[in-house]
């Protein structure tokens, strides 16, 4: 009796889990279905309608998606590179060079966890205009170049590095920069991977601030490009909107499917405080 109960509930749980999973992916599956079938001014589609790539061809002919991808790529690279450098330096300062008041400074940094730059977009737009950086990729990235989340995460990791390792390196005559690069950074590699994946997917997907700042094909990231395309096409041709949508998520989605385990583990690592 006591053996039978868990086995039974496992079957129920498995069925429940699969049902929910099916429900969860169905919007995506339906989008795939629509994107690869000829448009008949929207659904309903015949179940055996021929497959086609025409929708994707039309989308690429109608909107400069390759350029949008390039812009997103440049934006994400800029943000990630700067965040890694800036946050590593700050975290190193908090852990290894504490001085009177540095704890207070750290508390101040944490404010940005709550109040992210998009909340302050009116003032940040004003600042950007004053700097002459409207409609530039640098301007689009600037509010995010220092990340409180990154500083917090790297500080936690650096704190767990054994003091002896740091001491040993110093006795061998290593200077502070060498200690950082040879002791702390290598030991924090998993944290860097985790932070990198989280920040790349965040900024690949970011929309509101880029929408406000950008105004041209040369700067627009793919999220804003998709929105511009969809606004024109909405209600006209569903298949093309869905094809454009899938096109714009494809790189991240493919990367996610290949590195699924790393993604999930990185998000877990970044979330545990």
């Amino acid at each position, binding site marked *: 009796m006591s053996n039978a109960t868990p086995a039974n*509930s496992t079957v129920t*749980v*498995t069925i429940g889990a699969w049902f*929910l*999973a099916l429900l*969860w*992916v169905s*919007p*995506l599956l*339906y*989008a795939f279905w629509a994107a690869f079938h000829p448009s008949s001014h*929207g*659904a*309903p589609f015949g179940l055996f309608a021929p497959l086609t790539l025409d929708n994707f061809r039309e989308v690429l002919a109608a909107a400069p998606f390759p350029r949008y991808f390039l812009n997103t790529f440049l934006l994400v690279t800029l943000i990630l590179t700067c965040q890694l*450098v*800036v946050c590593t*330096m*700050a975290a190193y*300062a908090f852990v*290894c*060079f504490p*001085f009177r008041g*540095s704890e207070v400074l750290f508390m*101040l940094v944490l404010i*940005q966890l*709550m109040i*992210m730059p*998009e*909340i*302050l*977009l*009116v*003032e*940040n*737009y*004003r*600042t950007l205009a004053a700097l002459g950086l409207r409609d530039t990729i640098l301007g689009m990235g600037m509010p995010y170049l*220092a990340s409180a989340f990154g500083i917090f995460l790297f500080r936690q990791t650096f704190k767990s590095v054994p003091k002896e390792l740091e001491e040993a390196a110093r006795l061998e005559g290593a200077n502070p920069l060498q200690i950082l690069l040879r002791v702390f950074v290598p030991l924090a590699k998993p944290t860097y991977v985790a932070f990198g994946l989280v920040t790349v*997917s965040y900024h*690949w*997907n*970011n929309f*509101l601030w880029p*929408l*406000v700042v950008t105004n041209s094909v040369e700067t627009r990231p793919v*999220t804003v490009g998709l929105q511009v395309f*969809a606004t024109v096409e909405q209600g006209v041709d569903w298949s093309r909107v*869905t094809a*454009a*949508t899938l096109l*714009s*998520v494809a790189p*991240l*989605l493919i990367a996610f*499917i290949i590195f*699924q385990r790393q993604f*999930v583990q990185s998000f877990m690592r970044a*979330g*545990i*405080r």
Partner: protein
Amino acid sequence: MRDSRNVLYGSLLLLPAAVLLWIFTYQPILTTLYHSFFSTAKGKRAAVFIGVDNYARMIDDPVFWQALSNNVVYALVTIPVSMALALAMALFVNGRMAGQGIVRMAYFTPTVLPMVAVANIWLFFYAPSHGPIDQFLGLFGLGHNNLLGTPNTALWALIVITIWKEAGFFMIFYLAALQQISPTLIEAARLEGATALQVFRRLTVPLIMPTTLFVMVNALIGAFRLVDHVIALTKGGPDNSTTLLLFYLYEVGFQYWDTGYAATLTVFLLVVLAVVALFQFGYLDKKVHYR
């Protein structure tokens, strides 16, 4: 000697972060407050000090109140529902079962997609008469609904999208928490004769309480921070039924270019976030059972 060295190295290392955070976080918080007491500059007329006029206007503004109440409904529904689903998902994929990896991926995939893309997928889903949802409702003779175009249903349509996108994200944190509960603890409880439900209520729930707090605070911030789907799908309409606070702020600031009033709305949003922060640090931290 050592202290002054620390001050020197420490402040040099902190300098880039400090400058960037000052320009794009602290300084705008202060200037928002300042600008909220000024009128909006128009043409050659510069902004003038108008005291609390913008605040008085906000209190008399029915759209502001509508946005606030929409946002409260939106938060009160999306947060508990997506958290409950996230916990269920985490419990589902925590145990061993066939196709565990695929199921987990199915739950998590919406999270890696941009909200704008998600919105466009659902736009298709919600399409009147030939969208899948309307066709399904049509089977029961309830078809021909414009779910996004009707004031009574539009906000709920957005709520469904948000839950779909967020639940898998929160699942990850619950999964991490569940994996840290020692199996011997659960076995011991089972030997004492506890049912699965008792184990869940007496053991699992208290042990994952810190995660629940973390997820809740994140979800609260998210409910006030993410309006991409509003912009993509409804633009706040119909009749402001889907206007959320940040969307209204965006509309006032960048569609009407009324920056003075936008600053006032920003101050309100900052106060909301400050309350969330105080709630986290002050009240909830004491209520949570830590191990």
